[in-house]
């Protein structure tokens, strides 16, 4: 594979929650720009925690201590002086359950822009069309943007959530099991959208199954109980894993 640029460099990241559970233990990982990196492994392995470190959403949780560094384009985002608001605009996130805000479809898409102080209608319209097309939702909703977002189907809602984070033109898109509640057709639509996304953005995905990990990954990191067990290009890790535990997991012996 061609040598590519690192978008995010994680160095020796350790995270402890207040309730005493150690969630991440000395993680070091390079996330490559314009590629899809999947973080996979059994539940409780620390994948979501890592994801939520990347946009500092973990600030909202009961975190006791974080150590190590996370460099986004060479700048440490764990630094207390980091502008987390700007960071979150740069690093968008899609959650496991689609959470549409109680507004219209349009209102959901322009929400982040309005928060950032962008109120020009022309910019809104541009962002709506661009992000909906990227999320493969434009065809389905372009003529009913003012309807309540809650009226959409689950799969459409999740693509709306994706479009909503894309409307801010982020550089990195984090997805935390974005298809866990979706039917196979909706799932394939989301996956197809992801495939297009990585041309423009850096994508970090926590997949909801090993199969999805194998389908979508350019790079894959296997997490077990807060530790990074193996990290390699997806083609290698799923066909020729280097450690016994990774092999056991991808072949379905546990998990």
């Amino acid at each position: 594979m061609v040598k590519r640029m690192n978008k995010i460099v994680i160095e020796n990241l350790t995270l402890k929650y207040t309730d005493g559970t150690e969630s991440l233990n000395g993680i070091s990982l390079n996330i490559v720009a314009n590629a899809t990196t999947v973080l996979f492994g059994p539940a409780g392995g620390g994948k979501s925690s890592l994801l939520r470190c990347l946009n500092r959403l973990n600030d909202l949780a009961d975190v006791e201590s974080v150590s190590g560094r996370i460099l986004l384009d060479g700048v440490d985002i764990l630094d207390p002086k980091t502008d987390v608001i700007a960071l979150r605009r740069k690093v968008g996130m899609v959650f496991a359950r689609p959470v549409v805000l109680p507004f219209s479809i349009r209102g959901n898409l322009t929400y982040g822009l309005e928060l950032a102080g962008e109120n020009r209608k022309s910019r809104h319209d541009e962002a709506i069309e661009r992000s909906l097309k990227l999320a493969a939702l434009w065809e389905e909703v372009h003529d009913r943007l003012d309807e309540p977002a809650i009226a959409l189907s689950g799969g459409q809602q999740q693509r709306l959530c994706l479009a909503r984070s894309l409307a801010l033109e982020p550089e990195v898109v984090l997805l935390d099991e974005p298809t866990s509640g979706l039917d196979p057709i909706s799932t394939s639509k989301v996956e197809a959208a992801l495939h297009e996304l990585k041309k423009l953005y850096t994508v970090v995905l926590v997949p909801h199954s090993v199969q999805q990990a194998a389908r979508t990954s350019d790079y894959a990191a296997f997490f077990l109980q807060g530790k990074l067990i193996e990290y390699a290009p997806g083609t290698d890790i799923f066909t020729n894993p280097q450690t016994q535990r990774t092999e056991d997991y991808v072949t379905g012996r546990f998990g």
Partner: protein
Amino acid sequence: MSNFFTKNRELTQKLGFSLLTLMTLLTVIPIIGVVIYIIAQGAPAISWEFITGFPRDGMREGGILPAIIGTFYLTLGTAIFSVPLGIAAAIYLSEYAAENRLTRLIRLAIINLAGIPSVVYGLFGLGLFVLFLKFRTSMLSASLTLSIMTLPVIISTAEEALRAVPQSFRTVSISLGGTRWQTIRRTVLPQALPGIITGVILGLERAAGETAPILFTGAAFFLPRLPHSPFDATMALPYHLFVISTQVPEMPIKIQYGTALVLLVFVLGMNVIATFIRSRARAKRQW
């Protein structure tokens, strides 16, 4: 044998349901009874003059306009002080404050404030606003006293309404680059607003109907004119009702019930508005 038991069980069940229905009806009957009785006794007194006129002949004749206007002003004054303060406190408790000893103490204080008898608020208002701060016996003192009494209701219902807004909305808003305040202002507050308004109205409704807190702080026995400054004392419906029921000899009974009816309509009207807002918001809610 088993058939006998089945039948018996069905019978017990029917009996139980009937008993519960009866109990429910028993709680409703007195309320309906009171309303019907007051309407029946008070309706003959209601006339244009009664609503818009001043009392005459030692309050035995004429209207109750000063009391109606007074209660309106007092309710408005109470709203001015207690609504912003109550909502701000609720936002702080629900959105900003960490769970610690201080917030537990604040909550405990709020719960206990709600349990204090209203006459004690009256005495407190007399001491603090009328005498110490020298606001005199005035609408200002009375409104402030009623505000303190109303605050716990507003704070706890508003806090509950804020907490009912799904946490996921906050997380999403923050993840889209929102500050805490933007998140509250644009997502949480609008969603909680119907619940907050309902709580506000229920709190104000209680204030509108209270006698004891205004007794020493702002209510006048009789005034020949309308109050025209917050430092004026005022007549008010609940206190007027108390006065004409106990202090004025040879008071025509229909004036008493007419006054009660007006007060009832005032308070029930607010209640109906609150119920309407709540049910409409429930129907429109998107979560």
